[in-house]
């Protein structure tokens, strides 16, 4: 109980509350601007978190990401351009509602069910994390190795691309993480004599490059989005309670799917929205109405993507394995602030964990009033010309990457990763998989090599402990799944052909 009160006291500090408010506004604005994703919003915040207290730093990350995921729905609804990839799944549906003259209802659904989804996701974090932490205390390096492997495989499995390319992207990330001295022998590896590479490649410049610089690059080769027509909005929350009562099943299902996908390492809000929207359509009593401005799918997917945000923190806090690209950034911040992820975090720093829950709930509550203000102000904010925003973003990339280590080499890294990210994206290689490889590379190698040393080079002990055997089984299934699916399709494609030949 003391820890609960202590946590409330920590969150009630003026600097934390101010950080929550400012990062909420920042997240709402950045998320609403098309092309600027929630991950990018969070990545650009990292240099600023250096100078904040630990709780304020985590509060900015949590609040900005939750707000950005919601406000990504605004341009999707009004312009048919998703503000963040997490809104892409239901952009058509929301825009169809706007065309029917129900823009207020559509935006209200996005806001109301995002906030509810966020709070239910937080509840799942509160319940799941301590139980899993107790379980995880008994893990050895073998379990950690398989957990990391499973995390990497999940990331490739859910990428909306060719699984082979996703695995290649993930391996590229692991290769990048090989650079530097942080290996079992402390030997300079792949540094090519460059002193700046001895410390390895930090995930943050890579993230900023891949998600922010490549977005600026993309802006140069894509036309400007159309301007938003000026409009006056009616009541935003009108009728939301009626919808909540009318579609309880959809909402619960959206939340559960979001929570499960959030917990899976590497799969985040965008995947949750795609899966939930598809599920909603499949189980709906009126599937023919989907795509014509029907609220059902919007409710389910909107609830799902925000629910996944909180549950994405479960593997991040327990194992240091990111649940999505946003928690990949958060892990870096946690380490920096001395809150090293691991099961002991819940016993030794319990008050900090409770503070984290409070922040989640608080940010989802203030999402409603701030979100309404953002919707009303959207016609002004969305008018900001891209030619003014993108230069500011690029300057933030340059200054931010310098500020991480007060080292100009960071600026070069950001530029290089921007080009890598741009080329990868253009050719269908999911960049999120690479980022995950970079973030998890060191941990993955450490658990792999330590396990190999313990087992004297034999692979058998990797499968001997019960938990590691189960994890190994799931990992191998993840690897085999695309193969099986591919084989099934080939077989399925050939069968009708053969039938025709016989006929």
């Amino acid at each position, binding site marked *: 109980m003391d820890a609960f009160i202590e946590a409330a006291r920590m969150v009630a500090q003026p600097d934390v509350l101010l950080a929550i408010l400012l990062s909420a506004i920042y997240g709402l604005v950045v998320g609403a601007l098309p092309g600027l994703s929630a991950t990018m919003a969070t990545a650009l915040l990292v*240099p*600023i978190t*250096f*100078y904040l207290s630990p709780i304020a730093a985590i509060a900015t990350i949590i609040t900005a990401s939750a707000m950005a995921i919601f406000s990504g729905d605004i341009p999707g609804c009004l312009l*048919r351009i998703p503000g963040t990839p997490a809104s*892409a799944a239901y952009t058509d549906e929301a825009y169809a509602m706007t065309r029917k003259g129900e823009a207020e209802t559509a935006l209200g659904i996005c806001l109301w069910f995002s906030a509810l989804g966020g709070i239910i996701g937080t509840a799942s974090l509160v319940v799941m994390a301590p139980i899993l932490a107790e379980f995880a205390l008994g893990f050895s390096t073998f379990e950690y190795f398989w957990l990391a492997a499973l995390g990497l495989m999940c990331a490739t499995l859910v990428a*909306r*691309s*060719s*699984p*082979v*390319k996703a*695995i*290649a992207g993930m*391996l590229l990330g692991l*290769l990048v993480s*090989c650079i530097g001295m942080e*290996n*079992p022998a402390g*030997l300079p*590896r*792949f540094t090519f004599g460059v002193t700046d590479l001895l410390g390895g490649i930090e995930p943050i410049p890579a993230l900023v490059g891949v998600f922010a*610089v490549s977005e600026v*690059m*993309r802006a*140069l080769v894509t*036309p400007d989005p159309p301007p938003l027509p000026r409009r006056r909005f009616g009541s935003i929350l009108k009728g939301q309670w009626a919808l909540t009562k009318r579609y309880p099943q959809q909402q619960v299902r959206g939340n559960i799917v979001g929570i499960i996908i959030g917990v899976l390492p590497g799969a985040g809000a965008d995947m949750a929205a795609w899966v939930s929207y598809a599920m909603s359509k499949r189980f709906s009593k009126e599937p023919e109405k989907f795509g014509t401005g029907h609220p059902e799918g919007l409710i389910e997917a909107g609830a799902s993507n925000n629910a996944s945000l909180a549950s994405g923190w479960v593997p991040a806090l327990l194992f240091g394995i990111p649940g999505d690209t946003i928690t990949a950034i958060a892990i870096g911040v946690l380490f920096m602030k001395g809150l090293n992820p691991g099961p002991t975090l819940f016993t030794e720093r319990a008050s900090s964990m409770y503070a984290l829950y409070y922040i989640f709930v608080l940010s989802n509550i203030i999402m409603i009033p701030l979100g309404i203000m953002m919707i009303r102000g959207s016609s002004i904010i969305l008018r900001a*010309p891209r*030619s*003014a925003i*993108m*230069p*500011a973003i*690029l*300057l*933030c*990339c*340059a*200054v931010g990457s310098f500020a991480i280590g*007060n080292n*100009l080499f960071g*600026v*070069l890294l*950001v*530029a290089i990763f*921007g*080009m890598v990210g*741009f*080329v990868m994206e*253009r*050719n*269908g290689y999911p960049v999120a998989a690479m980022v995950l490889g970079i973030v998890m590379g060191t941990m993955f*190698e450490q658990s792999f*090599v330590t396990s*190999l*040393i313990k087992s*004297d*080079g034999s692979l058998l002990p990797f499968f001997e402990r019960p938990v590691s055997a189960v994890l190994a089984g799931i990992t191998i299934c993840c690897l085999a799944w*695309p193969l099986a699916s591919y084989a099934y*399709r080939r077989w399925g494609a050939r069968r009708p052909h053969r039938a025709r030949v016989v006929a």
Partner: protein
Amino acid sequence: MQLSDRITGTFIAALGAVAAYAGSLLPPVPGQQVGPNVFPLVVGIGLVICGALIALGIGHTFEEEAEAAVADLAPPESPAARHPLYGLRALLPPALLFFYYFAVESLGFIATAAIVALALSRALGAGWRIAVPLALIAPPLLHLAFFKLLRVPLPAGLLPMPW
């Protein structure tokens, strides 16, 4: 920069082969069989396999489905986009970051950032009426936030700020 799967796949396989070979040359931890050499070897072999599969076009069917789902959300292409060198415009942001890297120590933050902002906003089609005020206002604001509030030692160079 759209390349064929054959090219990217071959590149990845070659990169993997080089990484595996270079990794295998690293010495193990004294007294152990394994060391810093194992991980690059495993990753490199994985890359060789993936690269070969991509070059052979395996797994391409998954991509077509994902592309079809988002293709109709993409904005239409402008007529200028058909020019063969149009794609090279994308290289401007990294080029400006390289410029920043080399120039910021001597020119100072304000001047370098102003040049970067001006060049990029002009390239994005801004008129002088947006580009010039942006280049004049954004760098001092960033300098104030990062230098004064966050104490990041940004180089002063030619134009030291009053704070």
